[in-house]
């Protein structure tokens, strides 16, 4: 307001204010504005550089402490740190680890290092984390933090093996956020290597394909802790859990479960039928080809590219070839393609047969054959 009044007075030549005064006032106003702007930039830069300095100082201090403690000579039998190191840890905790900022920085440094080393030193990092009582920080994040901090806290709990925080992870299995749920599942798997999948029995569990791959990777990596028998989830009413269990039976080659998997070839859900077929193929369950043949004979609507492929690979007779003949003019392109594959693979003279069929009856199949015979796709 003050400035606009001044500006109007400046424009109004009839005013009694001398122009020089107005010029000086405006110049002072702009000078003050520029100075404030420059000062705010300088102050923010100073604050930033001070924060950076503080960060570097803390990081250096923490790196030093972590290195000294994890490389300290201990009593090999008891694993107890000498008094000097206990004092060093307590002093650092009192002086530097009061703020959540410093605690988070320390946790990040520990996690980063833990990912790079293994063996005794890895265990020492976990011990140091516990001595510094940083699990409180991680658990607090999971209890109260915003979602991204909940996820971060769960990762820390899993990485540092904080068993007493198991209940927090279970609580988050029913979170309203799907990312939190997924991270809770993975954290539970990592935290309970002896029984990594007990959460599958909880109601409402949903596993995405990516999640299944992550769990599979972890179980494979920790195979020495034991691979669970996935048969026990075959009676689950949860389609997602069923899908996961059947796939894992195939990936972990649990051949003894092949008969139980074959039951799912006639399941009402198409994706379960497909996964059962893929799993039988993975298990090389040749003795179950007839079961599959019977299912497809009784329910022809269950025939799809995957079941046909499984049948053609598992059966030793010409059942798959016969079935493929009937599918050459099916409206589903992928099924037609798989039928041609089956014919080409199934018999020595199959190429001639398919060509003859193409010329006489189904000229449209020529393109499929060209596609299949392309050396780039071979």
């Amino acid at each position, binding site marked *: 307001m003050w400035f606009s009044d001044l500006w109007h007075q400046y424009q109004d030549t009839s005013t009694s204010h001398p122009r020089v005064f107005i010029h000086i006032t405006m110049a002072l106003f702009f000078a003050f504005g520029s100075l404030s702007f420059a000062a705010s930039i300088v102050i923010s830069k100073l604050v930033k550089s001070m924060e950076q300095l503080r960060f570097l100082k803390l990081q250096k201090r923490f790196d030093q402490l972590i290195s000294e403690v994890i*490389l300290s000579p201990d009593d090999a039998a008891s694993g107890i740190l000498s008094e000097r190191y206990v004092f060093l840890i307590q002093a650092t905790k009192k002086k530097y680890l009061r703020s959540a900022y410093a605690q988070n920085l320390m946790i990040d440094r520990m996690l980063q290092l833990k990912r*790079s080393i293994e063996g005794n030193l890895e265990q020492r990092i976990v011990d140091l984390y516990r001595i510094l009582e940083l699990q409180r920080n991680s658990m607090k994040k999971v209890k109260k933090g915003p979602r991204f901090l909940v996820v971060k806290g769960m990762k820390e709990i899993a990485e540092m093996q904080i068993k007493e925080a198991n209940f927090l992870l279970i609580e988050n299995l029913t979170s309203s956020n799907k990312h939190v749920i997924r991270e809770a599942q993975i954290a539970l798997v990592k935290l309970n290597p002896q029984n990594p999948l007990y959460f599958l029995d909880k109601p409402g569990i949903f596993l995405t394909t990516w999640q299944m791959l992550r769990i599979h990777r972890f179980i494979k990596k920790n195979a020495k802790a034991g691979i669970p028998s996935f048969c026990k989830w075959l009676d689950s009413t949860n389609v997602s859990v069923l899908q996961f269990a059947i796939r894992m039976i195939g990936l972990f080659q649990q051949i003894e479960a092949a008969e139980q998997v074959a039951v799912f070839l006639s399941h009402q859900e198409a994706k379960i039928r497909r996964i059962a077929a893929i799993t039988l193929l993975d298990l090389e369950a040749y003795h179950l080809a007839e079961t599959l043949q019977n299912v497809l004979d009784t329910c022809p609507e269950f025939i799809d590219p995957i079941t046909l492929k499984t049948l053609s690979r598992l059966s030793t007779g010409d059942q798959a070839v016969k079935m493929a003949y009937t599918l050459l003019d099916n409206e589903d392109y992928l099924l037609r393609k798989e039928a041609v594959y089956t014919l080409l693979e199934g018999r020595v003279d199959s190429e001639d047969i398919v060509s003859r069929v193409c010329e006489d009856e189904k000229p449209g199949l020529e393109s499929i054959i060209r596609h299949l015979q392309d050396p780039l796709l071979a």
Partner: protein
Amino acid sequence: MNILLCEDDQVMSFIILTKLKKENLGEADHAIDGKVAKDLLSEKKYDIIILDIFMPFFSGLEIVEYIRKDLCMKTPIIMLSAEGSEQTVLEAFELGADDFIAKPFSPAELLVRIKRLVK
């Protein structure tokens, strides 16, 4: 024995250097990035070089190439990397690395490998 450690992670470097010191394996220099590594390599001769693959300015693979092609040195090289993919390992060996350790690793294992290569 002169050892060059090229690793950008400060704690990791500190641990490896402390381990080397404890084992009395000789003097160790530390390069925090690829640029410093190149400078040190052109100034001093080393008996063994430990290289991390991912470093600022020049990667570990580029440094191996520099050592073998530009400096024409036959110094034993141990590569460290979080990425243990077959392609990276093969590339490192093709460029002239002598050994490869995938992270996570035990520093004690690294020491054994150093001793074996220097023998």
